[in-house]
């Protein structure tokens, strides 16, 4: 998040929030929002107090003659600091203040008050500093407060990617904006007080030459014992500071990015963080035993009470900053209450460091805390610019808190690094981007954001600024060229291409065939997508180590449980007719013990409940009599699913007597089941059926052409009485076996139960279609076949011809 006003201060020109968002989105990073702040002060005016008199009826109140631009009004004021001749924010009668308070004319101790002189708190601008807010502005009375005092602002919420830590500060964002605006970035002056810029700046302190790993600065011993965790560590001692509230301009800056002002020292370090991305830390020198600052790996026995009041156990994975005795800071993550700067502090030790990013990441994950500092260290800050950050922090602290720097800052940097350089080839730029970008243009684009490019042989040697840890190889520079030139500047004309070598995935082709077959079956099936996560659906279900909830704790090993939950959801919505199917992955224990990666299989499942088909105008007007789906609808869909998903299987009645199974013709585990289901059903629901089939991923079998028949068929209907316990499938098997190859088709025409049949039996009528390929069948032949078939059926299954 950055503040528009703050960017304006760096770029020296007025900006517009939406325009900033658009420029950033096109050039570097998307903006999630532009949020106006302090717009609720639009009724407040600048006013000058002309005269102050004691209120006749109250000791602590004054009567003020106030010039608010539109004549002089009398105002009752309770602030002890009100003075004639000074300027204050003024809320006239009728104004609405932050929080929604609407000001009315009212009598205070008998005297009418025509408005209110406001304190910082009343304006939502921080804590009161001894009464009403004294302003130093040249703006004439009556000027809207927001026009005179630069706090009406917009927060620009940038979606900063993990590779661009430089965009986490105003300077970095301003640097990018400067390119398209044609502006330059200049750090603003740091005034001591008020909102006005003041002159006189302390001399910029020089950094000492980098030295090894320990030294003394102004009486404080600094030892860098963990250069791996803290490759560069700077310290400065400032003595004689006055800790107190920050000047208004600084408090406003911090509030504009959602930070609460604390005191001038802490606020100064926070300002540096948001301005130039350097997290800083200030210790109270009086609380440092030694006095010493020791940077070392934590010991397993170390503990620290962090600023949030929690005692934390440290590990040797972490870097800590200690005094002569014990840890005071978890490096780069969080300090302790013990070494905190307070109002009583007079001497401070200022730290500016570069901590190793992965070390910080592991530390803050292990401790479960993160801070604005750790967020930046983890992404990588500018190691090369530490002295600049330190100088700016010292300048700011001396401006707003006074104090003396008796020695220049100490810079411990055992292995100094030079800026990295990367070679960039023009030919590679055009190979990748498809457009020739002249060398001159490449140099201009790169230098606009801080790269330094110089020709070397037939390449460009590009020096990488310290704030760009993401640029590590040539292609990163090519991206810079592309985005700074503007992605819009590249053409988008289609060119010919070579087709690829990768065949279509057989599983996708299989799934498509199954989806098509089910959708086109005419049964009105809709494709559902259920969550592959749920409660354990079998003893072998694979658990997720870090589930979001107990309801989503395991991977599914079957599709049906999830589909049943979807049926129940539909029932809860008053939907009675539900026909859903799903194709998807299920997970099972791996057969290979070497891995925890589950084995994955594709399944198809169907659930059916409610009316067999949607109501049609030709149906009976008594809609309630539309038939519900029954077990035969289930079988029909099962045969359909098995036929397309597991064509090497036959559908057989289940041994349990309820439902069917899909049995591999070559033996082995059944590939699927179909059965009536139990569910949490409302009373009005129809019966629920479900089926699930393991999908055999295989290329589609090509149909083979059969010559069309040239001979006429002979069709004979056969009505049989089938005893209980004998299935139609068993009868069909006998019929086919006995009839032989002349029987072309066998279809069930009708089933009948009721009067006229022996108890416990049913009547089933089959239509038999006979045909010979080479001759016209005569009736005698089919009669002979039927007699043979009937005899066999009677002998093996006790099935007889039904007498009319």
């Amino acid at each position, binding site marked *: 998040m950055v503040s528009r006003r703050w960017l304006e201060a760096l770029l020296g020109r007025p900006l517009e929030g939406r325009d900033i968002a658009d420029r950033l989105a096109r050039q570097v990073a998307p903006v999630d929002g532009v949020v106006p702040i302090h717009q609720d002060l639009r009724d407040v005016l600048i006013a000058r107090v002309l005269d102050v008199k004691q209120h006749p009826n109250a000791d602590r109140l004054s009567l003020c003659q106030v010039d608010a631009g539109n004549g002089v009004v009398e105002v009752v004021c309770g602030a002890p600091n009100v003075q004639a001749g000074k300027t204050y924010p003024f809320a006239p009668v009728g104004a609405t203040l932050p929080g929604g308070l609407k000001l009315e004319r009212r009598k205070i101790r008998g005297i009418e008050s025509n408005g209110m002189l406001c304190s910082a708190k009343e304006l939502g601008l921080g804590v009161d500093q001894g009464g009403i807010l004294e302003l130093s502005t040249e703006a004439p009375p009556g000027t809207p407060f927001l026009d005179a005092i630069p706090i009406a602002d917009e927060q620009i919420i940038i979606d900063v990617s993990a590779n661009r830590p430089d965009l986490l500060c105003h300077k970095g964002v301003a640097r990018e904006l400067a390119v398209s605006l044609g502006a330059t970035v200049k750090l603003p002056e740091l005034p001591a007080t008020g909102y006005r810029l003041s002159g006189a700046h302390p001399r910029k302190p020089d950094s000492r030459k980098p030295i090894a790993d320990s030294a003394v600065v102004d009486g404080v011993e600094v030892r860098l014992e963990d250069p791996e965790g803290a490759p560069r560590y700077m310290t400065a001692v400032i003595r004689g500071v006055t800790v107190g509230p920050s000047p208004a301009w600084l408090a406003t800056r911090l509030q504009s990015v959602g930070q609460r002002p604390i005191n001038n020292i802490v606020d100064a370090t926070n300002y540096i963080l948001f301005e130039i991305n350097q997290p800083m830390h200030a210790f109270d020198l009086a609380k440092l035993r030694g006095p010493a600052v020791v940077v070392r790996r934590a010991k397993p026995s170390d503990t620290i009470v962090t600023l949030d009041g929690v005692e934390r156990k440290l590990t040797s994975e972490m870097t800590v900053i200690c005094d002569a005795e014990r840890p005071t800071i978890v490096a780069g993550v969080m300090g302790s209450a013990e070494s905190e700067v307070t109002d009583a502090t007079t001497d401070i030790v200022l730290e500016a460091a570069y901590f190793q990013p992965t070390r910080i990441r592991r530390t803050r994950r292990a401790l479960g805390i993160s801070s604005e500092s750790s967020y930046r260290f983890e992404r990588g800050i500018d190691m090369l610019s530490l002295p600049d950050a330190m100088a700016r922090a010292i300048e700011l602290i001396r401006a707003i808190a006074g104090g003396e720097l008796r020695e220049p800052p100490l810079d411990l940097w055992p292995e100094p690094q030079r800026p990295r350089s990367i070679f960039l080839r023009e030919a590679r730029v055009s190979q990748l981007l498809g*457009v020739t970008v002249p060398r001159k243009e490449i140099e201009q684009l790169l230098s606009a954001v801080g790269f330094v490019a110089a020709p070397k042989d037939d390449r460009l040697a590009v020096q990488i600024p310290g704030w760009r840890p993401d640029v590590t190889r040539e292609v990163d520079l090519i991206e810079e060229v592309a985005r700074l030139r503007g992605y819009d500047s590249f053409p988008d004309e289609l*060119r010919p291409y070579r087709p690829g*070598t*990768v065949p279509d995935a057989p599983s996708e082709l299989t799934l498509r065939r199954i989806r098509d077959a089910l959708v086109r079956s005419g049964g009105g099936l809709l494709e*559902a997508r259920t969550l592959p*996560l749920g409660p354990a659906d079998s003893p072998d279900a694979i658990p*997720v180590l870090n589930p979001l909830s107990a309801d989503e704790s395991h991977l599914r090993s079957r599709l049906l449980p999830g589909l049943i939950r979807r049926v129940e959801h539909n029932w809860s*919505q008053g939907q009675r007719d539900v026909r859903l199917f799903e194709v998807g992955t299920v997970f099972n224990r791996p057969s290979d013990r070497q891995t925890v990666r*589950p084995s994955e299989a594709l399944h198809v499942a169907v659930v059916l409940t409610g009316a067999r088909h949607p109501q049609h105008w030709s149906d009976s007007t008594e809609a309630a009599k539309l038939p519900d789906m029954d077990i035969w609808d289930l079988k029909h869909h099962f045969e359909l699913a098995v036929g397309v998903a597991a064509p090497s299987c036959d559908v057989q009645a289940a041994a349990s007597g309820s439902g069917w199974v899909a049995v591999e013709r070559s033996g082995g585990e059944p590939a699927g089941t179909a059965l009536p289901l139990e569910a949490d059903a409302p009373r009005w629901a129809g019966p629920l059926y479900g089926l699930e089939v393991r999908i055999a991923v295989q290329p589609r079998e090509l149909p083979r052409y059969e010559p069309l028949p040239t001979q006429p068929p002979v069709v004979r209907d056969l009505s049989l009485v089938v005893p209980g316990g004998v299935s139609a499938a068993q009868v069909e098997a006998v019929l086919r076996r006995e009839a032989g190859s002349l029987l072309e088709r066998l279809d069930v025409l009708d089933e009948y139960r009721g009067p006229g049949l022996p108890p416990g039996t049913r009547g089933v009528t089959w239509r038999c279609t006979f045909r010979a390929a080479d001759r016209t069948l005569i009736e005698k032949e089919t009669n002979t076949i039927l007699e043979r078939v009937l005899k066999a059926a009677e002998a093996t299954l006790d099935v007889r011809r039904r007498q009319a």
Partner: protein
Amino acid sequence: MVGPEAETEQYNFYALNFPKDHPALDAQDSFYLGGDVLMRTHTSPVQIRTLEHYPPPIRIVVPGRCYRRDPFDASHSPVFEQIEGFAIDEGITFVDFKATLATFARRIFTPTTNVRFRPSFFPFTEPSAEMDVQCQICGGGGSGCAACKGTGWMEILGSGMVHPAVLENCNLDSEKYTGFAWGMGPERIAMLRYGIPDIRLFFDSDVRFLEQFS
């Protein structure tokens, strides 16, 4: 091309040029099954599996389920669909990349839909880009439109030129071969295209919802 839904960190992250212990991993909060095995957070591991088995030229589309440890809300689901595209050959450039995706966008929306590409970051593409199409609700005017938050643009997919490190991780000559990749969320695109306000509707399987699109 397709790939497994349970993946190893190697395929899901490191072969795709995610640095170890890097904040880039934070955006990919994952469901772990144990050890280095997790539910894939994107379909991009299939890029690696393809490069391991097939020589260029490669032009594939990879549909598949992906998992991120985001609780359900109107725009997030712990399980979502992704469609990955991936092309590798000699001579593929940023221009081909833009042309292919812009053509795709105009086919799926309308032939006159405006398209723009913006810089983005994915460890496995460089340059990286996000593709926006002109808002299909307000027509790109933006002002007061809730669907595009007043910007006039809708973000459709993440994409970019394949990072040379990805090719090198699969023993391919990154000086010779270039390519592009993109990943998009069909749920998100369907939400934009059909005005569906809540991603959870896709997982409810309410027949009245499904019938609207059957």
